[in-house]
């Protein structure tokens, strides 16, 4: 009896501890949301109020008048989606060759791909910028998208997955006269869904949140993605918290929604990339 009570007390204590920690993690988000609906006076009032005295969308109206926030959002959506789709296709194609088609030099080439995983972006970005300038890709959507269509980790993760698909599947299809293209699109890709989900989530997150490359490769406000647009917003209004938080909310809601709906896949993907990478 007393041991049972003891166990219960421990459990309640653990929940209290975890709830306190949760507050620590949720509070900055909550503060951001509340700040986005407060007016410019209330947002700096001391002592602060938790809830805005009047929920108003004025901040959202103001920043969309002064800054093309809708455009930033569209840019982010377009860039993130096209990078992710192209990355998935290209990674899967390369992974298929590395997993299923034997040729001389295959392992050497694959190792070369793996080595690039270890090269920090900061090394390649400088001269890559110069190459993109020569190709007239600076200040363009292609310039934003192209570098993230290549992902060595993605190729690696997909190859691991495709290797588990028995050769007999593809061989049976070859006997029936199917080409590699048919085998890849009709047979391999549908069997790759878990790996595609992992690589897709990682790629989408990275592209959606990317800051340094867009900062380098674009200079016009028209092409700014949300993170870059937000930093421009901050450059203009350093301490207009209500406006900055409204911008933050617009930038956060899409990714937060996707995360909350697909949280299991998000957490699995990141943990997976962690262990395998």
């Amino acid at each position: 009896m007393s041991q049972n009570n003891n166990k219960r007390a421990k459990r309640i204590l653990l929940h209290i501890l975890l709830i306190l920690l949760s507050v620590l993690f949720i509070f900055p988000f909550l503060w951001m949301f509340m700040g986005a609906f407060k007016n410019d006076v209330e947002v700096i009032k001391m002592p602060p109020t938790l809830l805005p005295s009047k929920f108003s969308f004025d901040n959202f109206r103001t920043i969309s008048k002064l800054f093309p926030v809708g455009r930033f959002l569209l840019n982010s959506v377009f860039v993130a989606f096209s990078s992710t789709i192209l990355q998935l296709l290209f990674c899967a194609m390369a992974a298929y060759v590395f997993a299923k088609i034997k040729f001389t030099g295959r392992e050497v080439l694959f190792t070369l791909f793996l080595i690039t995983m270890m090269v920090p972006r900061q090394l390649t970005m400088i001269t890559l910028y110069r190459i993109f300038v020569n190709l007239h890709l600076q200040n363009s959507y292609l310039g934003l998208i192209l570098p993230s269509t290549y992902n060595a980790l993605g190729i690696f993760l997909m190859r691991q997955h495709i290797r588990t698909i028995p050769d007999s599947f593809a061989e049976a299809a070859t006997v029936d006269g199917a080409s590699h293209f048919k085998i890849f699109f009709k047979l391999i890709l549908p069997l790759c869904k878990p790996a595609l989900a992992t690589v897709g989530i990682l790629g989408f997150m990275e592209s959606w949140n990317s800051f340094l490359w867009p900062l380098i490769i674009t200079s016009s406000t028209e092409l700014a993605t949300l993170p870059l647009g937000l930093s421009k917003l901050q450059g203009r209004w350093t301490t207009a918290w209500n406006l900055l938080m409204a911008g933050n909310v617009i930038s956060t809601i899409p990714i937060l929604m996707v995360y909350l709906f697909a949280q299991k896949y998000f957490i699995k993907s990141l943990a997976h990339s962690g262990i395998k990478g």
Partner: protein
Amino acid sequence: MVGESRLSKGLVILTFLLPSLIGLILFNIIPIISSAFMSFTDWDMLTNPKFVGFQNYYNVFFNENSIKSIVNTLKYVVGFTPLVICFGLMLAILLNIKITGLDVYRVIFFMPVVISWVVVSLIWIWLYSPDSGIINYLLSLIGINGPAWLQNEHTAMPAVIIASLWKDVGFAAVILLSGLQNIPDEYYESAEIDGANSIKKLFYITLPCLTPILFFLIVTSLITSFQVFDQVFIMTKGGPFGSTRTIVQEIYENAFQMGKVGFACAQAWLLVVIILVVTLVQNILQKRWVHYESK
């Protein structure tokens, strides 16, 4: 494959590999080689590069801003990495106790991981603000006169580290949790029969079993910590008085604002060498403390 001509096989391989080959060559190999070459030149991206030998590498170690940025980066790495792993481990151990609502807590702790650094930084600038931030308000309630955090050269780096911990600790926790869940229950059961208490179980079962994942986590967080940029650039722009300027910010500003591209390339190569050496040292040291299960 039977009945397939060599030519058509080659063509298939080439078609499937082409996009990634372009990525490999154009986005990686050429930039790596040319940045190695440019690191020995004086170049502003507009005029022709001039060969200057090891001058840039000399400057990396003797230019005041450059050294300061290396020191600042080290401060971040040393402050951030041990803490993110310690707190991540504590969270993971809490989450590994079988309780209801585990999934909810995990989702919450992981939330900051998926948000962009720019958003997180903007929120924390406000939280840290000396006159309208809630952190100093809460501190004032318990009679503490909070510092100016990001505007004070002694507290700016710790403040950046705290915000970084908030963002990344959930990631470390989730990875360590997956490792904890892989430890077979029998280990604990047999230890209990031998009369081991919780502390003993932690040090003799949990931690040793977790060493491969801990090793992986230490290696990857060190690599990403050395590349710290977004949060510092947004929160402090490297200030006050350059107290938070990191190597990557130096590289970015030298290459894209100051027209010192060759110097920036040399700094980028220094970063690569640092990361390589740290990772190699880790690999050598791991033999002493990482336990791989014998299969």
